[in-house]
């Protein structure tokens, strides 16, 4: 039961008084959900802070094993994808659903580029023996570096999972756009996915300097 777009026009779900109230509620719900995402990643940032406080030189040294150029590339790709996503929301708001369809496609493409770069980064690390924790086996390097790589893989890995879910959500949006679900009077799901995507982007913007730029 949610807003339906039918012959009578836009009708709110039975327990809401108006579409405006329903949309307000939906947006508040999304923001609360995003707060939980921030708190979940927050735990990882706290772990990062604690371990970096304990082993500052080790972090400095370990960060050198990360490819700053690839990380920067991924950062730019994600920022671009946030721009295309925001534009997609704007287009829907203005009624240009074809444009928003294309912009979401671009966003998905950016996400896929991001994931491809990550794939290459990860496989390169495995090749070098830069495994997390006790499995760390890079020749000549101190075993404690495994702690840094534990953080690296968990933080970027969890982030990558969120990117993947984001792509899934965007494909869902594409399907709904094709079905004609959205209009200037009703585009909350596009708005919501947009917000989700921005949070995923912001998390990366914190991850990048903390992991890549401290070497």
């Amino acid at each position: 039961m949610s807003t339906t777009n039918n012959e009578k026009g836009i009708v709110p779900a039975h327990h809401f008084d108006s579409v405006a109230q329903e949309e307000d509620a939906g947006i508040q719900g999304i923001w609360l959900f995003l707060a939980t995402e921030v708190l979940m990643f927050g735990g990882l940032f706290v772990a990062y802070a604690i371990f970096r406080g304990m082993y500052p030189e080790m972090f400095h040294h370990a960060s050198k094993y990360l490819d700053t150029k690839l990380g920067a590339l991924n950062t730019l790709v994600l920022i671009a994808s946030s721009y295309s996503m925001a534009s997609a929301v704007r287009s829907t708001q203005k009624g240009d659903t074809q444009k928003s369809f294309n912009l979401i496609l671009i966003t998905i493409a950016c996400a896929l580029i991001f994931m491809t770069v990550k794939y290459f980064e990860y496989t390169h690390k495995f090749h070098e023996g830069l495994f997390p924790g006790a499995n760390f086996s890079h020749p000549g390097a101190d075993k404690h570096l495994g702690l840094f790589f534990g953080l690296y893989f968990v933080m970027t890995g969890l982030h990558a999972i969120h990117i993947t879910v984001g792509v899934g959500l965007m494909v869902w949006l594409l399907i709904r756009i094709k079905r004609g679900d959205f209009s200037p009077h009703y585009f909350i799901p596009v708005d919501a996915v947009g917000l989700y995507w921005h949070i995923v982007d912001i998390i990366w913007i914190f991850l990048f300097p903390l992991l890549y730029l401290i070497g």
Partner: protein
Amino acid sequence: MSAGTNYLTHSKGLKSWLFTLDHKRIGLLYLGAVATFFLVGGFFGLLIRLELLSPTKIFMSSDVYNRVMTLHGSVMVFMVVIPGIPAVLGNFFLPIMIGAKDVAFPRLNLLSWYLLMLGASIAVLSILLGGVDTGWTFYTPYSMKSADAVTTIVTGAFIMGFSSILTGLNFIVTIHKLRAPGMTMMRMPLFCWSLYATAIIQIVATPVLAITLLLLIAERVFGIGFFDASVGGDPVLFQHFFWFYSHPAVYIMILPSMGIISEVICTFSRKTIFGYKAIALSSVAISLIGFFVWGHHLFVSGQSELAGAIFAILTVLVGVPTAIKLFNWTATMYQGSIKLDTPMLYAMSFMALFLIGGLTGIFLAAMAVDVQLHDTYFVVAHFHYTMVGGVFMGMMAGLFYWIPKMSGHMYNEFWGRVSAVLVFIGFNMTFIPQFIMGSRGMPRRYHLYDPKFASFHIASTIGSWVIGLGFLVAMITIFKAMRSGKAAPANPWGGTTLEWTTSSPPIHENFEETPVITGRPYEYN
């Protein structure tokens, strides 16, 4: 809508229940689930007490005992007490009490139930995969190295966490957006305030549990090293992460129960609550302060003295809003017109038992005393007094109070009172000996023990049979009232909150017309 239908008869068939979007039916789905999990967890509890009749092995090896101990805790915490009141009574009554037709996100609500069921199934699956013996707290490094189904049970808990988060999210938006005209926050029933404070914790704390459990799984599967001393990690870090959620979690458990006590005491004293604002805001205060006290679980972990001191002072400060409630409830009864029906009996039981639970919490907050009492049966008794004596007594009070509304039938008052008396007596028989043997040195999570503690254990086990019987009587009485019994009027108790203006049981839409609120609840005379 045809005349004479209510939410139970509105549609029929299994599918109409499994795919329902009606918050009332979802509340009942949760009731069925939580009641079943309670029987499972309670069964394990009785098994534990049975084995502990003797200082040496009776019928369980230490390995089996440790698994039963872990399951009792895990099932009760994650599958009974955390969902408990919010998911059952909160789902059913929050919308009605604020004059709404449903919660903000009905589909999310149904999803929350399925997540609980999925997570619970996975957690219980761990029994078949060798079981888990780490205790429900999963401390590292043991939980990392243990060759058992830790990953499975932790995955189950992770999924159930999302059930809790989504319920909290739903309730916050419901309270913010769906209050009926005239229902300002300061005119909301106190049960709703307690659900609001609880929802804040669910949203802020549970994600930290999620990441903690994920890290434990990552540690087991990928050896990431955060908690592994051999690569420079810190096993105690797990304890900090774990308790950052699990301490606020106990306020998720108790706050809704306190909300029910406010409702029941007012109705059965026919009197306005004393200090409405203080009780409403004290719930939020407990919720907020509760985030900053987790370190009191770590006084002897090697934590710094200064950190311990800060946690100790904050911990006792949480006691202040709690005390305010107890005093205000007592003052509410002054010059009231009191009837000791079953819900009120359970509420009085709450007052005595939760008071003891809270006072013994002060013992544990005094650092030097905690050194002696930590990880002994004193702590076990403390948390049972608060979780059972507090949360369960409130849940029972709420169930008996509201079953006439939910089912349209009155329950059997005689058996209701019998259950309350049995539970009160049995509870004290079970747990007072535990306080004493705990302060005398009996450690917790012990399968075998020094014979000098035997008489305490025997007394405690006999008590467990009495409380088991009491809960059985209560559950049968409530279950029977779901399907039969005297027809309940709309307002059998003389309550003043909105749910008593609807029919018993309510219609599908809750109200014929959206109510308009003109004053505070609990106005008598």
